């Protein structure tokens, strides 16, 4: 409990709630390794001389590329460019391909005793070198290309090489700064894997989230409509099936509590099938829960009513049975009309239990969760807007509980979800307080 309240003030999410331990060791080791390479003078001089030997063929390659490029730009036909230009290019690239593994071996953290999957030289640089070598290999046979192709290839090779030269120059000149950058970026990543205290940020975010207002609005609307429906249907059915006019009441009442006896899951499957857009009742009433939010909302109301009316009905029936026969007879003798009799005699007698049922069932609607979830996952998906806040894509019928549930199961923003639930909890507790006040008064 305390833990979950604490989470509400953190930035917990999928990445940091259950961090991959491998990833953490990787990062930690690469930090240690970079620090070691930076601070060990012996290693440093060795690395710098290695870099110098790497830079030489790189610079050569750049130079030959430039030569070929200049010739081509001067309008020399490819066939007139001396073949040894390309041969020199190829030779320098060969040297490069020999030295690169040596460099990456010596700058390899795993070999230095800090096993990590992250290299000091980023993989994009190594890939660049690879593609450069391939390119040069292709250029050994310049006659195979048209002028335009040859020029494009040369230009590409030239650009790749010059960016590589820049990169390794920086590494050689500002060796320590480079290592510091490596350390910093690893530390940043490591930090994102740790849960941090972020104060009230989650709540600020919540109150700026249009989906929250939408959820609040839909929930309150659902409370109003569904409670009215449930209570209305339940009470009317109870009165109707208690009257002497209906024959076979007992058997019919047994039929009527079927929704109560059916496990929720079975009802859910049934209603989902019935109210599909191509299902029987969905077609009959022209409802499509998957595209129209108000169609879906209507089906939620119907389903909730169907689920809850047996409860209301049973309570009302119990209260009706409690009305003494002679009271009703007395009203007959007094000549009261059916309507007056109901208002003056029946209503006061059943008021208390019925309003208790109303309070209980309001609680159920306030916490509507399964009904929207099972019917269409609180959809359809669309732009959820709140006046003054803006719009955002989301599930249009997310009620409050579903809203938090989805933040956990879909977005996996645990800190945010926990803060939502603190607010929902406050709402529920307010409701319970009202409920208890009501109980006390009715006693």
């Amino acid at each position, binding site marked *: *409990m305390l*833990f*979950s309240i604490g*989470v509400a003030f953190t930035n*917990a999410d999928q990445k940091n*709630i*259950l*961090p991959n331990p491998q990833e953490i060791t990787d990062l930690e080791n690469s930090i240690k390794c970079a620090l070691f390479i930076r601070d060990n003078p012996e290693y440093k001089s060795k690395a710098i001389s290695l870099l110098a030997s790497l830079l030489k063929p790189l610079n050569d390659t750049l130079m030959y590329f430039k030569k070929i490029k200049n010739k081509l730009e001067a309008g020399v036909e490819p066939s007139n460019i001396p073949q040894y230009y390309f041969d020199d290019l190829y030779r320098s690239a060969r040297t490069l391909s020999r030295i690169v593994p040596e460099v990456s071996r010596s700058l390899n953290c795993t070999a230095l005793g800090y096993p990590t999957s992250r290299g000091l030289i980023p993989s994009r640089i190594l890939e660049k070198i690879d593609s450069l070598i391939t390119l040069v290999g292709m250029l050994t046979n310049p006659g195979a290309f048209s002028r335009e192709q040859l020029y494009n290839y040369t230009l590409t090779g030239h650009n790749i090489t010059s960016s590589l030269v820049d990169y390794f120059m920086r590494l050689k000149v500002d060796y320590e700064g480079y290592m510091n950058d490596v350390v910093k970026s690893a530390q940043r990543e490591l930090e994102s894997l740790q849960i941090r205290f972020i104060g009230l940020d989650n709540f600020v975010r919540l109150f700026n989230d249009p989906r929250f207002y939408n959820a609040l609005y839909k929930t309150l609307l659902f409370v109003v409509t569904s409670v009215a429906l449930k209570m209305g249907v339940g009470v009317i*059915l109870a009165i*109707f*099936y208690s*009257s002497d*006019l*209906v*024959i*076979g*009441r007992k058997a*019919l009442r047994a*039929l*009527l509590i079927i*929704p109560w*006896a*059916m*496990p*929720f*899951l*079975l*009802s*859910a*499957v*049934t209603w989902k*099938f*019935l109210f*599909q857009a*191509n*299902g*029987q009742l969905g*077609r009959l009433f022209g409802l499509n829960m998957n595209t129209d939010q108000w169609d879906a909302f209507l089906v939620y109301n119907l389903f909730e009513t*169907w689920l809850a*009316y047996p409860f209301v009905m049973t309570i009302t029936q119990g209260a009706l049975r409690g009305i003494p026969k002679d009271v009703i007879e007395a009203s007959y003798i007094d000549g009261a009309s059916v309507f007056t009799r109901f208002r003056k005699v029946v209503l006061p007698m059943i008021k208390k239990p019925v309003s208790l049922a109303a309070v209980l069932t309001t*609680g*159920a609607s306030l*916490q509507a*969760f*399964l009904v929207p979830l*099972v019917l269409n*996952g609180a959809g359809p998906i669309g732009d959820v807007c709140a006046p003054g806040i803006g719009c955002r894509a989301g599930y249009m019928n997310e009620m*409050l*509980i579903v809203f*938090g*549930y989805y933040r*956990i199961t879909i977005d996996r923003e*645990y800190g945010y*979800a*926990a803060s939502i*639930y603190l607010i929902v*909890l406050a709402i*529920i507790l307010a409701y*319970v307080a009202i*409920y208890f006040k009501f109980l006390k008064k009715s006693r």
Partner: protein
Amino acid sequence: MVRASIVILKICASILGVFIAIALAYPLVYIVAQALIGKPTILITELNDLVEYGLTIDNFIKTVQDPEFHESLINTFVVASITVILAILVIIPSAYAFSRFDFIGKDTILYYYLIVSQAGSGLGIISVLALYIFFLRMAAYGVGLIRIEILPFIYVSGLIPFQTWLVKSYFDQLPKELDEASFIDGANWFTTIFRVIFPASKAAFIIIVLFAFMSAWGEFIIANIMGLKTLGRYIYVKAVAGPAGLMRPGEFAAAAILFAIPMIVLFAVSQKYIGEAYRLGMKG
């Protein structure tokens, strides 16, 4: 004349009554028909479908043969049984203690139970999600708690507030003199509890067993959050949340009905106890 009009009124009202009752019970008829239809891939939209494809029990047979169904059925059975045993072990003694003894914090705890049990299902979802986050965090420290064995504990903790009140009210009704008489007769605690109290509170046991079993059997959302394979989750994931249900509605209607049968039977059995339980619970 008046008599005749009353008779007509009666007939009309009864017809209306039958009509409404059938309309409200219709979903059950529909799902049974859907489970029995001869072509499992079709969603029934008109009566004619039944005539055209005929009725069979193939869907049920197919469902029963699905190995995944077996696995979840066994899991659910184990979970439900453990839940029942745990519920009895935890709730009966604590309810007895609440009923018979005075201890520090008794009223506070009872009041807390009352609030929690009346607050509704949303609170349960919230706490389970909080628990889930906690479990994930524990897993980060190498303590894997998300396993099928954890479910009964969660279910029982969900049952405790309401059920403790219920059984406590029940024990309150048993006269205290019963215990005292037994002590005076020289019985020790053991004998008093097992020979006197338990036999007298058979109904409380029945209520707990039924409630615990039904809630564990019918639960699916907690299992789904935790990703544990129970029968409820199997049906929920496939038929309700996923697309399989609409592709083979016949089979999943059958699966849902098979899943529901034990609960409906228990509901019928427990009808009179449930009434009594709510009456007792409301008192508190």
